């Protein structure tokens, strides 16, 4: 039986409270750089790992929250588990500011 760890921040909360949420983009960058080992520098991945550069903040954030709250099975779900919700939001916010790869030719297969 898997118990939900905690209530996560709602994205709308971040948006409404945007002014009070810390904004230093270099802190976002520092957290987000920890994704690059697998997802490529600034989110430009090679092979079958998802590129996350240029993704919409809300989409990526919700995806990460879903992973964190899922019955953790795969490696990425377990990674998401280790971060706070605010950190996941800041990661998503950072990658939304990075231009998508020029050679982005793969279809986005998620968002069901």
């Amino acid at each position, binding site marked *: 039986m898997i118990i939900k760890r905690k209530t996560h921040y709602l994205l709308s909360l971040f948006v409404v409270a945007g002014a009070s949420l810390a904004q230093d983009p270099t802190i976002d960058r*520092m957290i987000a750089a920890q994704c690059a080992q697998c997802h*490529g520098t600034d989110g430009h991945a*090679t*092979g*079958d790992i998802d590129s996350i550069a240029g993704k919409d903040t809300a989409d990526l954030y919700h995806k990460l929250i879903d992973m964190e709250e899922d019955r953790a099975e795969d*490696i990425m779900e377990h990674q998401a588990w280790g971060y706070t919700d605010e950190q996941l939001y800041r990661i998503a916010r950072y990658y939304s500011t990075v231009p998508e790869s020029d050679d982005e030719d793969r279809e986005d297969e998620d968002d069901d």
Partner: protein
Amino acid sequence: MTINRRNFIKATSLAAAASSAPGILRAQSGSARVVVVGGGFGGATAAKYLKHWGGDKVDVTLIDPRARHTSCVMSNLVLNGELPLKDLRFGYGDLTSKYGVQVIKDSVKRIDPTARELTLKQQVPVNYDVLVLAAGISFKKPRGWIANKNPHAWIAGGQTRLLKDQLQAMPAGGTFVMTIPRSPYRCPPGPYERACLVADMLQSNGGGRVVVLDANEGIQAEEETFSRAFDQLYGNVVEYSAGVELGVVDSNANVVETSLGDFSGDVINIIPTQRAGGLVRNNGLTDGGFWAPVDVTTYESTLAGFEDIHIIGDAQGSGQPKSAHMANAQAKICADAILRKLASQPTDHAERLQNITTNSACYSPITRDTASWLTAVFQYDMDKGAMALAHIAEAGEWTRDNYSEMFDWANNLFADVWG
């Protein structure tokens, strides 16, 4: 006469002092010089990200005696013939052409932390404002051990090839003996992964023995996965013993003395006790211990007299696992801290401290076409002033999908370091 940038800086430092960050003297007009020693996973990542994030504000020089780094990551697949060693070699060309990192091919002989000067083996001395040491590991050699006869293959390269050649020349039904040192050592799952792959090789050649002599009290990583693999896949091949102290090694006779008795084998793989690389140890940065004490919010040495010297990767002693992925993670925290300090910004404000994270993720081949994985996330604990484990998990099983994902993981990691 050596060109001594430090003298120039000293001459101008009075004028610049008012605007300089504490501890860092630099010319007001010029960019600060950061020197990174070691072009492995930690050092190359630090050099790259300092330039990627710092641009013209920082002048980055990478020093390494070799033109290319040979990756330990994936190197167990060289042993079973699944990968050529040449595919694991990475040069520094992209660091220069894409990011503007200057590369000096030489060895550092000595660090003068007062003059902030590095003596090189062949070329003129190099001065630094900030120094990053990514010196990796060195070995505490067991008595009698000859590495050219009983390879460690724990620093990839010629040693990897030697062990591969020895394994291929092993007689049918032969015995492979491996000794595992006390933790911490580089790549916690690595020895068990290697035991699995050698067992796989022997089993498909009609059998043999893989004798694993572990100085630790048990399997140090992916315990569920490796216990099951030893039992279910390799029950007739792997003989695992924990708590075994290594004594004298007779490399000429291929015999190891241990607390469990003497073991002889056709191939003996000694993975010795490890400590920080010689450059870190010989310059006083381990304070007589095995690893360098650092502040994990900056990776700067915590020892007096070594201001602006940072140690990342396997050589530092913060208690995080010694892995390539983790060295890369630490390099980014270190680069971030150095750039803030050079810009006279704090590195210890709450917003930054509560967002210092590192992680390690890796795949372990269990057979020639399946793999497991291991992942861990660390968060900075402000009360303890240390990195604390936030979450850890292992696959617990081995699949073909994981084997395929392992190549994507490795290729992205390699690209984030040297690409």
